[in-house]
């Protein structure tokens, strides 16, 4: 009867000792937990980001950062968390939603932190940093970016003995010869989304802009884009058995796609057997492209702002970004960090890239894309679509 009691007492003493030792340990080095949230662009990227964060944690003994992926509709999930005053400390902000969130006051201005820690912002490409700046207030640093490029299947190109198109006319001619020679037997030569995030570069290429979206130059761009579909040279991804044009290229139901740097890791992991060339976007009157960028920003409601700033500024520093670029999943947003090889077609777009986003974004973008699909099916005219877009942009 006595023995078990003694054992129990001894055990209790050990537990108490360990507990005091452990709590003494935490008292010595107080660790601040910082949460980082973003969306996932695939297992490769998640793994890389976790490696980068592990490096941060190893070099910063007083801060422990954890990355949590928000699956599904990121902007919706974040809106709910802002409203509940329970946002992650540091998070991704897409350039398209940045103006809205900045105006709503949920993103922390960084100017005082920049001044206090003498953080050098001059290395960021100005056009990218501008996407997260209002007046002189900085709301985040671009973590990376990508413009669009033109990807063409090597097999289809070889079949028609084609060469890289540089103008609209050459692009159409190449697609025409692919169509007549049956280079894409199960689909169409070009994959075009009913999406202004793919159509806008053509507007810029024709010398038009969102400011004069109803101009003859913009109308001509829309006629060219939709015309490729109407001529049977292009099709939307859903009609090519794909969720997006990258998938259509992989399934070989299209030979030409206009996608960003994100296509490359996707293709090598999902369709490694499909070989394709990456070329700069076609030009018309001028070059035209979109720059898709995402920032690391801090929440205004963050409870650990000092630690959050340490994490944010480290991730976007030369050290942090060099690690982030090591696998070539995106392009550097800093001039002092080099991109991995094979990205010339993307880097060539830098001078022509317009930041992705516009006023009244979520409403306008919905109207633009719904109208675009209406134009493709013939239930709206190009002129109606552009007029609706101009209206929506005015808010």
């Amino acid at each position, binding site marked *: 009867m006595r023995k078990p009691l003694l054992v129990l007492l001894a055990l209790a003493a050990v537990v108490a000792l360990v507990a005091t030792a452990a709590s003494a340990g935490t008292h010595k080095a107080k660790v601040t937990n910082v949460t980082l949230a973003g969306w996932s662009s695939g297992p490769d990227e998640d793994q890389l980001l976790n490696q980068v964060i592990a490096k941060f944690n190893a070099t910063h003994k007083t801060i422990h950062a954890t990355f949590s992926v928000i699956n599904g*509709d990121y*902007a*919706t999930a*974040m*809106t*709910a968390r*802002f*409203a509940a*005053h329970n946002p992650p400390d540091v998070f991704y902000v897409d350039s*398209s*939603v940045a103006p*809205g*969130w900045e105006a*709503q*006051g*949920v993103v922390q201005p960084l100017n005082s932190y920049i001044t206090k820690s003498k953080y050098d912002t001059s290395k960021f490409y100005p056009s990218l940093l501008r996407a997260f700046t209002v007046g002189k207030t900085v709301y985040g640093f671009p973590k990376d970016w990508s413009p669009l490029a033109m990807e063409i299947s090597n097999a289809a190109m070889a079949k028609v003995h084609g060469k890289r198109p540089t103008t609209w006319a050459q692009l159409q001619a190449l697609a025409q010869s692919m169509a007549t020679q049956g280079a894409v037997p199960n689909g169409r030569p070009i994959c075009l989304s*009913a999406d202004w995030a793919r159509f806008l570069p053509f507007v810029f290429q024709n010398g038009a802009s969102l400011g004069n979206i109803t101009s003859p130059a913009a109308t001509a761009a829309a006629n060219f884009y939709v015309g490729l579909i109407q001529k049977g040279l292009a099709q939307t991804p*859903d*009609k*090519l*058995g794909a969720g997006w044009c990258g998938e259509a290229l992989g399934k070989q139901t299209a030979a030409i796609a206009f996608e960003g740097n994100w296509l490359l890791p996707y293709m090598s992991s999902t369709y490694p057997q499909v070989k394709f060339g990456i070329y700069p976007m076609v030009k018309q009157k001028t070059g035209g492209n979109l720059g898709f960028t995402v920032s690391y920003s801090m929440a205004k409601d963050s409870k650990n702002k000092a630690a959050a700033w340490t994490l944010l500024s480290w991730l976007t520093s030369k050290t942090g970004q060099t690690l982030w670029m090591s696998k070539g999943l995106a392009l550097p947003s800093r001039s002092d960090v080099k991109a991995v090889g094979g990205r010339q077609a993307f880097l060539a777009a830098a001078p022509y890239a317009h930041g992705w986003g516009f006023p009244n*974004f*979520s*409403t306008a*973008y*919905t*109207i633009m*894309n*719904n*109208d675009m*699909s*209406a134009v*493709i*099916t013939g*239930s*709206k005219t190009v002129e109606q679509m552009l007029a609706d877009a101009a209206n929506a942009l005015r808010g």
Partner: protein
Amino acid sequence: MSAVASTSQPRSTMLGVRLREAGWGYAFVLVPMAVFGLFFIYPFAYMLYISFHNWGILGSQGSAGWSNYSQVIHDPIFHTALKNIAEYTIGVVPLEMALGLSLALIVNAKIHGKKFFRSAFYFPSIASSVAITTIALYLFNYNGLFNHVFGFHRAWFTDASTDTWAIVGLNAWTTSGTIMLWYLAALQSIPTDVYEAAALDNTSTWRTFWKITFPLLRPAHFFVLVVFGVGALKLFDQSYIASGGTGGPNYSLYNPVLYIFRAAFAGGAGNFGLAAAAGVIYFLIIFAVTIVQRLTVGRREAT
């Protein structure tokens, strides 16, 4: 005196008993009412309050008067959403009622394996609508099994000309199991003597159904029409999933609930004032539809 006293005594006890009973009654009602108040009345009142404000992610940014209401009422997208949901409801409700009634007649008949059929028909009703829609999107996409077997060339759920009808078909199938149960209960409550009388008159099965069974199911028709009609007006998940949350292509999958959701959340917009106003307007519309149903179908049912 004594006589008065002797009669007043039981009366006051009766009153006491009644009061006590009422007290208990209210006590029992109190809990569900508190839940109802907390999760329905309070949020509804708060929604009314929000609808008159410019309400952002972090709360009110000032009073808005009627401007949110005016914006919703004049928004062509809201009009399209209403037109779409009307089309959908008019399409889906008769179809699911017909399907549910047919299934009920099958499982009510004297056949072998009744229990198996009953469970099989009910199964889609308990499966998650999100899972069912996702699977349907695969089966009915451009290169899906359906097109492969039947030789069509169409992405049924993402083509503006077929997507509403694809969702009508899908939802008629998933809800028919529940409707079957309601009709089954109603069928089993029809007294057998009316059928016996019909049998004596040598009435055909077809005539028996249309002259006896169908009219006697009137309370069930009304119930199903109201409950599933309102249910259809609240369509959201299937449209959200099939359109990727955009209501497209060409606004064909836009519906009022998606409109409310998008105003509040899409692209991190956080326009809760507008969303609340749209919610109030749509509540009034559904309320009016129910009243009309009550006054038309319901009145006939009562007589």
